[in-house]
C-alpha cells in the first residue's frame, strides 16, 4: 500500500525528463503502467475471503504521526476506483491532450493527485489522512488551473482552493479534537472508544468540524459552488477528480467515521438533510445548464448528495446502497464526462444549444451516452446499474425512523427523494436527446463532426461495459466487493438482504415509475416551463454570495489596513503608547497591582527639591520653546540636573559620566543644529494637541504610579550585599560600581563598548558615504 502511495510520487519526479521527448512518444504512455499495476494488485485482493489488514511505517513516532495504512473493504473499493479509473483516464488523456500541450505539468499534477488520493483512502492515522487530504486540494487546484492563461481556469482554481482548504482546515480541527479526546491517532483505535467520543463535551465540535470538511470536499450544499467552476479543467481531469475520486473523498470520510458518529441522532439529521437538499438543488440546477460539463457537474453534485443522504440514513440497506452507488456513479459519470470530452473534441463546442442530431454522425459515442445517461436517470431497465442503486435509495428512504425532529425528517425524505430524482431524469434525458437527437445545426458547429478515434473511445467503452456488467450480474460484485465495503462502513456483518432486483411489486418500483412518468412529461414540455429557471434562483444564486463575500473581504481588509497604516510615524507611536497604557493600567487594575501608600521612604531635603523643580521646569520648557538653541540648552539643563541628583544620591561615577556625556551630547546637538531647519511655529490643530498632551500626561502618570507601586512591593532583599562584601576580596577593587562593571558583570561592558563602536562606525558611514544626488534615481 505504501508502494501505491509513493510509486506515483516517485514517477512524478521523472516526468520532466520523460516529457522531453514527448514529440515521439506521448508522455501518458509512461504514466499508464503505474495506476494499472496498482489496479492489478488491488484486484488480487478482491474476493469473498477478503479480510482487512494493516501496515505501519514510522514517520514522526514521538508525535504518534505515522503512515499507518489500513486496507478494508471501503478503502479497497476506493483504491480500485482510483487506480482503475485513473488508468482509464490516463489512457483517455493520451488521445485527448495534444502533444503541444505542457504534458509534463499535466502528468506530474495527475500523479501527485493519484498518490494523495491513495494516501487519503489507505491512511489509518488521522494526521497522515489530513496531509494527503490537503495534497488532493493542492493538486486539484493545479489541475483546474492547468490552462492558466484562461481567466475562467484561474477563477475556478482559486474558488475550489478557497472552499476545499477552508473545509480541510476545519477537518484538521475536528481530527485534533478527536485525538485529544481519545488520546490516539489511529482511526481503528478510535472505533473502540465510541462511547468516550460520543459522551465527550467536544463531540458537537468534532461533528461540526469533520462534517464541514467532508461537505466542502464533496461539494454538498451550500459548498457545491466550486465544482461547476472546476469544469474549466481539461476533461480527463473533470472525469477523474470531479466525478470519481476527489469529490468522493468527503463521502469516504463520512463513511469512515460512520460507526462512531451514527450513534448520535444529529448524524442522521445533518447528513441526511444536507444530502437530500444537495440532491434536489443539484438536479434542479443541472436542468438549467447549457454547457455539457455544466450539466454533468451539477449532476455530480446531486448524485453525491444522494450518496451522502444514504450514508446519513445509516441503516443497513442505506449504507449498502450508498457504497453500491459510489461504484455505479463512478462508472457512468466517468464515461459521461469522457463522452462530453469527445463531443467537445470532435465538434469544437460543449454548448448543448448548438449541438443536436449527432446520432448518425457519432454512433459509437451516442451508444455510450445512452447507457450512461439512462443509468444515471435510473431508468428501470435490468441491465443498468443506476437503476438498482436508485431503487435501493427509494427503499432505504422508506424505512427511516426516529423521534422528534428525526421523525419529521423521515416522513419528508421519500418525497424529496422522488422530487430530486424527477429532475435527475429530466437532465439526463435532456443531455442525451439534446445532443444526439433533434435537428443537426451544421452552421453553428466550429468543426465538422465525425466519430472519435478508437483510442479515445476505449476508456468510455470499458466503463459502459462495467455499467452493463454490474447491471446484469450484480451478485458477482456484491459478494466480492460491496459486501465487504458495507461491512467495513457499518462495522458489522451484512446479511444477504440484497435481492433488491426481485421486488417488482414494491413501493420503490412504483416510485421509480412515477419519476419516469413525471420526468418524461417535464422533458416533453420543457419549453413551456423553461422560464421558471430565470426566476429561480435568480438573485439567490450562491455564486453571487461567494463573489460578494470574497469581494467584501478584500475591500474591508484593505480599508482597515489603510485605516491605521497611513504611513505616519506619529500615528504608529500613538497607537503603541495607547496600547501600552491600556495594557498596563488594565493589568494593574485587574491584579490589585496598585499600592500607593509609601513606606520606608527617605526624607525630602531642600537642595534635592530645588534640583527637581529646576528639572521639571526645564523639561516643560522643551515643549514650549520654539528656538532650537534654547531647546538644546534646556535639554542640557535637564541632563545636568540629573547629574546633580546623582551627586546627591551618592553615585559619583554616574554623576561624572552623566556630566561628560551631557556635555558631549549638547555639543553634538549644537554641531548639528546649524544644519537643521529652524523650529517653526507648529501649526497643529487643537484636537491633535489635546490628544498628544493627554497621551503624554497619562503615560507620565502611569510611569509614576508604576514606580511608586513597584517601590512598595519588595519581595526579597537585593543581592548587592554580595557585591559589597566581595568587591575587595574577589575583585580587588574598592570602587564597587567599577568592579561590577569590569569584573562581576564585565560582559555588559564589553557589549556596551561594541554599541558605541557600532554607533561611531554608523555615524561615520552616514556622513562619509553618500550617493550623489543625481545618481539616486
Amino acid at each position, binding site marked *: 500500500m505504501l508502494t501505491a502511495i509513493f510509486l506515483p510520487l516517485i514517477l512524478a519526479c521523472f516526468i520532466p525528463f520523460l516529457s522531453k521527448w514527448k514529440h515521439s512518444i506521448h508522455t501518458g504512455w509512461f504514466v499508464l503502467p503505474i495506476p494499472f499495476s496498482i489496479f492489478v494488485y488491488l484486484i488480487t485482493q478482491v474476493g469473498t475471503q477478503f479480510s482487512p489488514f494493516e501496515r505501519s511505517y514510522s514517520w514522526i513516532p514521538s508525535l504518534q504521526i505515522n503512515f499507518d495504512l489500513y486496507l478494508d473493504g471501503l478503502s479497497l473499493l476506493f483504491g480500485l476506483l482510483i487506480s482503475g479509473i485513473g488508468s482509464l483516464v490516463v489512457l483517455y488523456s493520451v488521445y485527448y491532450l495534444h502533444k503541444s500541450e505542457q504534458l509534463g505539468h499535466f502528468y506530474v499534477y495527475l500523479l501527485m493527485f493519484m498518490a494523495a488520493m491513495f494516501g487519503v483512502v489507505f491512511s489509518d492515522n488521522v494526521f497522515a489522512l489530513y496531509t494527503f487530504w490537503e495534497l488532493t486540494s493542492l493538486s486539484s487546484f493545479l489541475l483546474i488551473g492547468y490552462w492558466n492563461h484562461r481567466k475562467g481556469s484561474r477563477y475556478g482554481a482559486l474558488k475550489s482552493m478557497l472552499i476545499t482548504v477552508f473545509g480541510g482546515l476545519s477537518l484538521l480541527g475536528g481530527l485534533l479534537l478527536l485525538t485529544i479526546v481519545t488520546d490516539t491517532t489511529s482511526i481503528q483505535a478510535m472505533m473502540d472508544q465510541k462511547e468516550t467520543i460520543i459522551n465527550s463535551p467536544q463531540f458537537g465540535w468534532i461533528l461540526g468540524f469533520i462534517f464541514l470538511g467532508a461537505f466542502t470536499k464533496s461539494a454538498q450544499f451550500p459548498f457545491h459552488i466550486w465544482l461547476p467552476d472546476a469544469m474549466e479543467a481539461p476533461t480527463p481531469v473533470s472525469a477523474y477528480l470531479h466525478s470519481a475520486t476527489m469529490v468522493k473523498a468527503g463521502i469516504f470520510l463520512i463513511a469512515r467515521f460512520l460507526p462512531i458518529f451514527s450513534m448520535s441522532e444529529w448524524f442522521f439529521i445533518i447528513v441526511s438533510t444536507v444530502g437530500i437538499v444537495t440532491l434536489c438543488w443539484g438536479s434542479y440546477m443541472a436542468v438549467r445548464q447549457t454547457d455539457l460539463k455544466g450539466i454533468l457537474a451539477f449532476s455530480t453534485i446531486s448524485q453525491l448528495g444522494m450518496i451522502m443522504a444514504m450514508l446519513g440514513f445509516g441503516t443497513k440497506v442505506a449504507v449498502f446502497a450508498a457504497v453500491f452507488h459510489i461504484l455505479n456513479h463512478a462508472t457512468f459519470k466517468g464515461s459521461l464526462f469522457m463522452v462530453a470530452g469527445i463531443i467537445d473534441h470532435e465538434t469544437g463546442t460543449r454548448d448543448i444549444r448548438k449541438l443536436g442530431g449527432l446520432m448518425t454522425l457519432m454512433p459509437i459515442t451516442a451508444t455510450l451516452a445512452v447507457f450512461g445517461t439512462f443509468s444515471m436517470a435510473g431508468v428501470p431497465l435490468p441491465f443498468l446499474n443506476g437503476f438498482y442503486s436508485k431503487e435501493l435509495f427509494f427503499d432505504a428512504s422508506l424505512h427511516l425512523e426516529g423521534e422528534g425532529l428525526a421523525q419529521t425528517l423521515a416522513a419528508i425524505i421519500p418525497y424529496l427523494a422522488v422530487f430530486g430524482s424527477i429532475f435527475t431524469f429530466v437532465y439526463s434525458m435532456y443531455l442525451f436527446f439534446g445532443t444526439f437527437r433533434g435537428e443537426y445545426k451544421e452552421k453553428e458547429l466550429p468543426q465538422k463532426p465525425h466519430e472519435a478515434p478508437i483510442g479515445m473511445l476505449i476508456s468510455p467503452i470499458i466503463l459502459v461495459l462495467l455499467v452493463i456488467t454490474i447491471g446484469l450480474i450484480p451478485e458477482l460484485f456484491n459478494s466480492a466487493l460491496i459486501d465487504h465495503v458495507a461491512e467495513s462502513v457499518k462495522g458489522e456483518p451484512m446479511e444477504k438482504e440484497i435481492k433488491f432486483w426481485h421486488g417488482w411489486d414494491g413501493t420503490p418500483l412504483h416510485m421509480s415509475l412515477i419519476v419516469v412518468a413525471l420526468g418524461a412529461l417535464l422533458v416533453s414540455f420543457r419549453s413551456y416551463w423553461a422560464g421558471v429557471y430565470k426566476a429561480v434562483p435568480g438573485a439567490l444564486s450562491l455564486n453571487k454570495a461567494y463573489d460578494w463575500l470574497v469581494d467584501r473581504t478584500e475591500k474591508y481588509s484593505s480599508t482597515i489596513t489603510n485605516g491605521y497604516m*497611513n504611513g505616519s510615524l506619529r500615528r504608529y507611536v500613538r497607537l503603541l503608547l495607547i496600547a501600552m497604557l491600556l495594557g498596563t493600567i488594565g493589568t494593574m487594575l485587574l491584579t490589585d497591582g496598585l499600592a500607593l501608600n509609601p513606606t520606608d521612604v*527617605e526624607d525630602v531635603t531642600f537642595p534635592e527639591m530645588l534640583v527637581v523643580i529646576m528639572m521639571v521646569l526645564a523639561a516643560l520648557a522643551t515643549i514650549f520653546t520654539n528656538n532650537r538653541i534654547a531647546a538644546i540648552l534646556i535639554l542640557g539643563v535637564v541632563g545636568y540636573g*540629573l547629574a546633580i541628583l546623582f551627586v546627591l544620591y*551618592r553615585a559619583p561615577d554616574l554623576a561624572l559620566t552623566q556630566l561628560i556625556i551631557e556635555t558631549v551630547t549638547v555639543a553634538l546637538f549644537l554641531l*548639528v543644529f546649524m544644519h537643521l531647519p529652524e523650529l517653526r511655529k507648529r501649526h497643529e490643530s487643537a484636537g491633535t494637541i489635546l490628544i498628544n498632551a493627554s497621551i503624554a500626561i497619562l503615560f507620565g502618570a502611569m*510611569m509614576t504610579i508604576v514606580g*511608586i507601586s513597584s517601590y512598595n512591593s519588595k519581595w526579597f532583599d537585593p543581592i548587592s550585599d554580595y557585591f559589597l562584601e566581595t568587591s575587595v576580596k574577589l575583585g580587588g577593587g574598592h570602587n564597587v560600581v567599577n568592579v561590577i562593571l569590569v569584573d562581576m558583570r564585565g560582559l555588559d561592558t564589553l557589549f556596551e563598548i561594541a554599541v558605541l563602536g557600532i554607533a561611531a562606525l554608523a555615524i561615520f558611514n552616514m556622513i562619509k558615504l553618500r550617493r550623489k544626488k543625481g545618481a539616486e534615481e
Partner: protein
Amino acid sequence: MEMITSLLAGILFATGVYNLLQKQLLRIVIGTALISHGAHLFILTMGKLKRGNPPIIVEGVENYVDPLPQALILTSIVISFGVTSFLLVLAYRAAKTNDTDNMDELRGNENE
C-alpha cells in the same frame, strides 16, 4: 523623596513622549533624550535612595548605597548616548537628503 523622584521621572517621561509625538525630527531626538533621562532616574529610585555612603569601600564603614543600579545606569547612559548621537546624525542626514524635517512629509509611498 522616592515619591518625588518617581514623579519627576513621570514628568520626564510625559514631556519626552509629548516631544516624541511632534512633527519635527529634532524634537523627536530631544524626546528620546528626555525619556532616557527619565528611565535612568527611575532605575536609581527603585534601588532605594541615599541609604548610606557612596559605594566605595572604606575601612570601617558598613552602610553603602546599592551599587548594582548604578552599574546598570552607567551602562545605560553610554548606550543611550550612542543611540542618541546616531539618531541625531540620522536626523541631520534625513533632513539634508529630503529637504524637510517634517515627519508628516517624510511618509512612505502610498502603495508600499
